[in-house]
């Protein structure tokens, strides 16, 4: 077979066939078009402002390594004026994260960027190794994922940085869209399409500059630029549901490579149809946007095979934001009342229509938002949070999850309610839901005790705020 020539320069041998349009390109032209497209995403979405300090969530894996490399290149080429820092989370998984952190350390030297490593042990008093030792491998990804996303924000705050970029690629976004589609969860589907999430008033915002980049091209970019990245599966296996969505995406890609970007576009179009949800480039003004995140990630995410794949948010940030929202309500009312749709939308919203609870024009939103899930006690705009509701019997809220895991671990070992595992003392089934174990509700999270007064003993700051799982005595 005669080698094909590059469709752009027409001189070099084509080495890459682009999934999005089947264009055959040589190495040089591929690298430059890949960078140009990320540049286009960045400028068209106005992701950065000159002089902005930006933390790159770096795992040492392909996506974040390519992100760091491309951002450095573009920052210099187009004078973004960004102050780039690598931010890594050490979950405390021996033989996995310690190795990948070595890669990040090399990247810091290669890209001449400062590196900050934040450990679960310092933030929460637990390493994932210890968590798994306690609760087993099942479901630990969810726990890990939720806490990693929070850890990224906390790391950024330690550095005085308000913007974290992550290496989520088009495949990741398509996968999340599909998962939400399969779950029938349009509001979350809508939010997952945003390129920016989080709040830019005071908290850390997130963005995904590689949102439109194919995973295949990311790997090829890393290969052809000989980037130094780490690739080993996390020792604690990825979540099955995400895994199957991933396989599906990859199989679709084999048959029809454009499918991935098509799903992303479809997701964006669907997002526009979801009442009250905004998928505009920036979700920063959306209260529900940030709110949804923990639940969001708690359920959807785990880490799967890609770290911090879901758009991130943070529990503490969320709580703080909720309080702010309350404070801002007075200010917002004027704006809101000028919007003609408010009245009718408001009525709808009051009728508990979960789909509409994110409408920023609707005043009652903050009220709804401030409730707590009756099941898990975590913040929710509904009586039963989506996480608990949708996956009835398989709670997704990280707090309930921890409880149920400990509970099932205890059952599995044939131990009684008040028995212990390791040095963890377990609680009985206080909720009457067959779930027993750690109780990690939080005074700061829960405005009102929903457990009929049983919850006095829960009155401790939650793990997320307190640097460790709360263990009842």
């Amino acid at each position, binding site marked *: 077979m005669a080698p*094909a020539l590059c469709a752009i320069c027409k001189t070099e041998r084509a080495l890459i066939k682009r999934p999005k349009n089947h264009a055959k390109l040589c190495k040089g032209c591929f690298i430059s078009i890949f960078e140009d497209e990320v540049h286009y995403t960045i400028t068209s979405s106005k992701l950065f402002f000159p002089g902005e300090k930006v933390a790159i969530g770096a795992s040492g894996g392909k996506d974040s390594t390519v992100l760091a490399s491309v951002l450095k290149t573009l920052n210099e080429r187009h004078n973004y004026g960004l102050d780039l820092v690598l931010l890594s989370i050490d979950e405390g998984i021996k033989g996995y994260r310690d190795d990948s952190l070595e890669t990040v350390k090399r990247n810091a030297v290669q890209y001449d960027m400062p590196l900050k490593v934040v450990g679960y042990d310092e933030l929460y008093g637990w390493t994932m190794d210890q968590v798994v030792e306690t609760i087993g491998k099942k479901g630990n990804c969810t726990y890990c994922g939720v806490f990693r996303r929070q850890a990224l924000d906390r790391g950024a705050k330690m550095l005085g940085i308000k913007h974290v970029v992550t290496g989520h690629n088009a495949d990741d976004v398509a996968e999340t869209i599909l998962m939400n589609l399969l779950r029938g969860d349009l509001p979350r589907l809508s939010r997952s399409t945003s390129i920016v999430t989080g709040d830019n008033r005071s908290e850390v915002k997130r963005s995904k500059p590689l949102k439109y980049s194919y995973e295949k091209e990311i790997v090829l970019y890393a290969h052809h630029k000989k980037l130094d990245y780490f690739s080993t599966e996390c020792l604690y296996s990825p979540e099955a549901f995400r895994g199957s969505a991933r396989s599906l995406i*990859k199989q679709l890609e084999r048959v029809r490579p454009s499918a991935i970007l098509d799903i992303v576009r479809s997701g964006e179009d669907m997002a526009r149809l979801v009442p009250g949800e905004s998928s505009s480039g920036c979700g920063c003004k959306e209260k529900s946007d940030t709110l949804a995140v923990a639940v969001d990630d708690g359920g959807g995410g785990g880490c799967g095979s890609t770290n911090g794949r879901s758009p991130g948010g943070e529990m503490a940030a969320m709580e703080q934001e909720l309080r702010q929202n309350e404070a801002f309500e007075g200010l917002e009312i004027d704006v809101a009342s000028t919007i003609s749709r408010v009245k009718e939308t408001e009525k709808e919203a009051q009728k508990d229509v979960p789909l509409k609870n994110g409408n920023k024009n609707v005043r009652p939103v903050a009220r709804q938002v401030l409730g707590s899930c009756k099941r898990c006690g975590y913040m929710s705009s509904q009586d039963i949070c989506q996480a608990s509701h949708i996956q009835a019997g398989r709670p997704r809220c990280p707090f309930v999850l921890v409880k149920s895991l400990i509970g099932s671990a205890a059952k599995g070992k044939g131990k009684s309610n008040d028995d212990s595992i390791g040095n963890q003392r377990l609680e009985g089934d206080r909720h009457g839901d067959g779930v027993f174990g750690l109780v990690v509700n939080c005074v700061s999270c829960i405005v009102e005790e929903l457990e009929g007064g049983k919850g006095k003993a829960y009155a401790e700051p939650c793990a997320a705020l307190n640097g460790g799982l709360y263990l009842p005595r």
Partner: protein
Amino acid sequence: MSLTIPITVDFSGGLEMLFSNKRRHSLSIPALFTEEKDGKGEGEGEGEEEDKGKPVTIAFLVDYLCKNFMKDPRSDLFVLDGHIRPGILVLINEADWELEGEETYEIQAGDNILFVSTLHGG
């Protein structure tokens, strides 16, 4: 037929772990192979094919690697339903195999075949 051709096979992106944790493998593979028939004795031309054999292809190589070099029981991370698992990229002398006929590419002496997974950690 004992003719062999030398090639190098690289694994990366996490696939190394399926093949003795080694990235580069220098191999001598048979230059020709005979296609296995599904039903024995079904094909009349079988004997003839055995004599001639066919040039080895990527499809043959994948099967050959699984049978001879896979040290890990998780072969489904490499092969799914008899084909390279979707999400694994194959580069033939640095070029995307999609440009080279994919599984039907006939392997030449000195070729470098790289299997790189996109499926692992990010």
